[in-house]
């Protein structure tokens, strides 16, 4: 029997695994997909919000501010790509200017540093490509952008380095109570645990209902995005929000850590948790709304559209508590925005709840809290020379758009949570993220994956289970010529 099973390895599950791996605990993480960060974490705005938005006194308010502070430390310690870019919340009318004032007061109450409202002239001086229609803006210097994939990965990898086990393609299909804990039934055998953390994101209600009476419902709400080429990345230097509405923070335009420009999301209920399809209407709305902030965006430079699902619950706050009548079963549910920002604080709160449930948390002496990766692109010519001389694999460029080398992909394959698919390599190393979208490097990455896992080319996956890239060899296929 392990001490803790964490169900779900998105940002919340990974943060919990990382936090708990400080302690002398046996930890098993169960993830239904073949990689970490495959649900809401995979497709969102990639922003670490400063925390001016949530209602003061709410869990969201407290955990956002604390989480953002922790995120900053984690990014440095665990080598997570991030950018301290700041943000502007734009007001286009007198009514919205009043709203800015309210956000400012909110922010001050929530402990957000250095907030101030700027007049039109200063806003346009700061960001000359913004719409001339802007009336004023709230300046939020502490907003960051981050790579959510690598954020999750860094936490998951560090947890594994510290002894946690992550089982991929291992969905929790049922839970029964046993003396002193729970038995989790997965497609790949049972796992017994003293305590359980439910970090199942979009599926958190279903997992909760396996042990306790229904207490909340998760509704997937879709957000659609444009990701534009790096030649659009310099149009703005900060995250540009519009005034928030009941439907969240609205359509933002933001630089990404990799230098691209992102625009989105809209807010439309999804058919189901697995519905990641973009729609003509949704994309048109995002384009139109983004242009309200930054009129000159060249959407022809789009390199990818995508959609993500928010885990919206029927509570207007995060649900972080022990499930009723289920001792040691902790729900971390309804983690909508600012969930990415709050995750490390949510994890600390979860650890507290486990202690309250009777789990003894004793710190390890040898907790590894460092992570460092080689990024060829960021090296100087002299550093590159030395690196390639020592290990020629770093001289072999696989992805030309993002300058990703064979050595870096090999590092990923040998890491604690290795990629199992072409998109898994993309999420870790950026190969295929660029303007040609893997047209050039796709076949090369496929070859590396096949060689590493000793698989036939036709077994290599684009992304999740069943997403085969190639269907057969050529020759001996019956012809269907008319």
């Amino acid at each position, binding site marked *: 029997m392990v001490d803790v099973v964490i169900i779900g390895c998105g940002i919340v599950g990974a943060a919990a695994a990382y936090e708990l791996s400080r302690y002398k605990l046996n930890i098993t993480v169960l993830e239904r997909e073949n990689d970490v960060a495959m649900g809401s974490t995979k497709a969102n705005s990639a922003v670490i919000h400063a925390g001016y938005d949530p209602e003061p006194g709410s869990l969201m308010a407290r955990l956002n501010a604390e989480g953002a502070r922790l995120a900053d430390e984690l990014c440095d310690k665990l080598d997570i790509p991030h950018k301290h870019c700041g943000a502007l919340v734009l007001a286009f009318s007198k009514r919205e200017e009043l709203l800015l004032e309210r956000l400012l007061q909110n922010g001050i109450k929530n402990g957000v540093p250095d907030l101030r409202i700027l007049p039109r002239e200063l806003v346009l001086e700061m960001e000359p490509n913004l719409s001339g229609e802007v009336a004023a803006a709230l300046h939020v210097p502490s907003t960051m952008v981050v790579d959510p994939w690598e954020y999750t990965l860094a936490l998951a990898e560090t947890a594994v380095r510290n002894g946690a086990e992550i089982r991929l393609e291992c969905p929790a299909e049922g839970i029964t109570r046993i003396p002193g804990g729970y038995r989790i039934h997965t497609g790949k055998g049972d796992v017994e645990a003293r305590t359980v953390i439910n970090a199942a994101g979009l599926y958190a209600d279903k997992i909760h209902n396996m042990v306790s009476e229904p207490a909340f419902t998760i509704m997937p709400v879709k957000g659609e995005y444009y990701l534009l080429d790096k030649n659009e990345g310099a149009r703005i230097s900060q995250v540009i929000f519009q005034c928030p509405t009941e439907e969240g923070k609205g359509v933002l335009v933001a630089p990404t850590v990799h230098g691209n420009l992102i625009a989105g999301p809209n807010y439309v209920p999804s058919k189901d948790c697995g519905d990641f399809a973009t729609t003509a209407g949704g994309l048109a709305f995002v384009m139109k709304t983004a242009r309200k902030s930054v009129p000159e965006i060249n959407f022809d430079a789009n*390199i990818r559209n995508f959609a993500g699902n928010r885990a919206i619950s029927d509570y207007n706050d995060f649900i972080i508590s022990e499930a009723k009548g289920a001792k040691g079963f902790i729900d971390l549910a309804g983690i909508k925005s600012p969930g990415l920002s709050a995750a490390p604080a949510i994890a600390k709160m979860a650890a507290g709840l486990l202690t309250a449930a009777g789990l003894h948390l004793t710190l390890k002496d040898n907790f590894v809290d460092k992570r460092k990766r080689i990024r060829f692109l960021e090296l100087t010519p002299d550093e590159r020379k030395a690196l390639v001389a020592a290990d020629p694999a770093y001289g072999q460029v696989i992805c030309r758009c993002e300058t990703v080398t064979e050595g870096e992909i090999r590092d990923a394959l040998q890491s604690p949570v290795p990629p199992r698919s072409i998109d898994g390599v993309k999420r870790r190393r950026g190969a295929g993220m660029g303007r*040609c979208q893997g047209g050039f490097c796709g076949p090369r990455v496929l070859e590396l994956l096949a060689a590493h896992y000793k698989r036939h080319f036709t077994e290599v996956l684009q992304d999740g289970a069943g997403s085969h890239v190639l269907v057969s060899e*050529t020759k001996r296929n019956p012809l269907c*010529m008319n």
Partner: protein
Amino acid sequence: MHELIVIGGGPAGLAAAYGAWRDGLRKILIIERDKELGGILNQCIHTGFGLEYFKEELTGPEYAGRFIKLLQTTQIETALDTMALKITRSREVHASGKQFGYAVLPAKSVILAMGCRERALGSLGIPGTRPAGIFTAGTAQRYINIEGFMPGKRVVILGSGDVGLIMARRMTLEGAEVLACVEIMPKPGGLLRNVVQCLHDFNIPLYLSHTITEIRGSKRVEQAVVSKVDEKRQAVKGTGFAVDCDTILLSAGLIPEIELPTAAGIKIDPKNIETSAPGVFICGNALRVHDIVDNVTTEALRAGSAAAAFVLSEKIHD
């Protein structure tokens, strides 16, 4: 120091290097990112090359082979498996690869012959899912002709550029069923001869003034929704029909690869093999996309001559 570094060992780079050699340069290096010279011609196994330049009909590998053999009669050096990562206005080439690790190579002249890339899905803005099974036509061509693998069995081709048309035939000959070739414009994008011998010969329907308006499928492509478009290329509501397929090939245009000069602040005029940087020349599909390779060759020979003239005149001034 090299008199000339040619970036790219495809048809443009091969002819450019040869042109410079013919005009008297002796220290020439070709940097090629692949394991062999020839570039995209290696995977263009169909015929139709060389009618203008060689006055006979060759396949891509045969056309490339002619120049590779020609180069073997010279002392032009080649660095295979090597990627040029950066150039400067003062003609330094940063390259990385098997041959010399990471190196900064100065040169008296540089010819940019990086070719072009295919327009990817993103810029087409097609709504729907993003499952496996969506390839640019050129990537599918590489998988089939070089690696020997089929990317799918039931195919819809978006765009009627030459690579897409050629792949319609090629996939049919390898046992796939090409269900439709869909072109947003009222006329085909590729050469008429390719419409005839790649689509008509195999009864593959060509839908002009149509486009794909939605991609469906969760793991692998399951359906493409094809709709008619109006004169403004906007989808006409109610005209959509779903095609059951496992693969979508994109043949929606080629884009010159000019990231290297752009990053260096070197300006390109698509009508001119000279760039804004003295001694830096550009030719082939990196300059502008050519319909036929013979024209690439002619242009690249000119670029080679221009580089030679530049280097030799500098010598006189020295």
